């Protein structure tokens, strides 16, 4: 600690240091907080492996008609989630088919739950209007979390 840091300089430096912290963008803090909220979740992360949205864009040069249904596939080592958007609801199926419970986590922190039937089917209705992710826990103990989804 240099001796020449008198009170005024020290206070000035402190002021700068605290302001520099306030300058961190809020989205940065928000993202960090969200990541932290998930850091101790013991679920497998399912990656988005198919999105008809991207498919359609590529196909646009070849075809003029657009698919009316958006389909998404999330894949993890033990489970695949097939999702289809139809109107206001999201229909899904687990592969291989099995029963379980599905949690819908929105970016705003709300959590709702829906049941997955014996053949692995479920519906999310209505579709959250903000980003959300799905966490699926099956009867046999598989626990899978998807990445964030925006419909």
């Amino acid at each position: 600690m240099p001796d020449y840091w008198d009170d005024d300089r020290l206070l000035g430096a402190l002021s700068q240091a605290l302001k520099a912290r306030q300058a961190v963008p809020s989205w940065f803090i928000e993202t960090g907080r969200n990541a932290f909220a998930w850091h101790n979740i013991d679920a497998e992360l399912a990656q988005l492996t198919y999105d008809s949205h991207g498919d359609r864009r590529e196909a646009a040069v070849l075809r003029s008609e657009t698919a009316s249904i958006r389909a998404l596939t999330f894949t993890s080592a033990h489970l695949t989630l097939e999702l289809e958007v139809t109107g206001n609801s999201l229909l899904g199926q687990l592969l291989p088919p099995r029963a379980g419970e599905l949690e819908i986590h929105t970016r705003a922190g709300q959590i709702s739950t829906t049941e997955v039937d014996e053949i692995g089917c479920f519906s999310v209705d209505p579709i959250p209007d903000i980003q959300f992710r799905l966490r699926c826990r099956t009867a046999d103990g598989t626990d899978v979390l998807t990445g964030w989804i925006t419909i």
Partner: protein
Amino acid sequence: MDDATIDGEILVAERNAALRAAFAALPPRCQQLLSMLISDPPHSYADIHAELGLPVGSIGPQRARCLDRLRQSDALAALGEGGERIDIRGGEPGA
């Protein structure tokens, strides 16, 4: 951005982190007082008296005491000789 600027920015960032750590380790009364003193726009001693209940005459000595604690803190001591290389008079990093 040249190397000297980057070095300078790293030193400033280190110093800022040390200052924040030192500040966080201060007693709450000191944190409140110093926060009010460096707020923008600054609070008057009368405001500080009203907010913290400190007699106006003791704000100056209290300020000196709090800054002394800050200066003696482990976080700033750890900054050690590195701190001497930083010109603390300057405003923005690299300026």
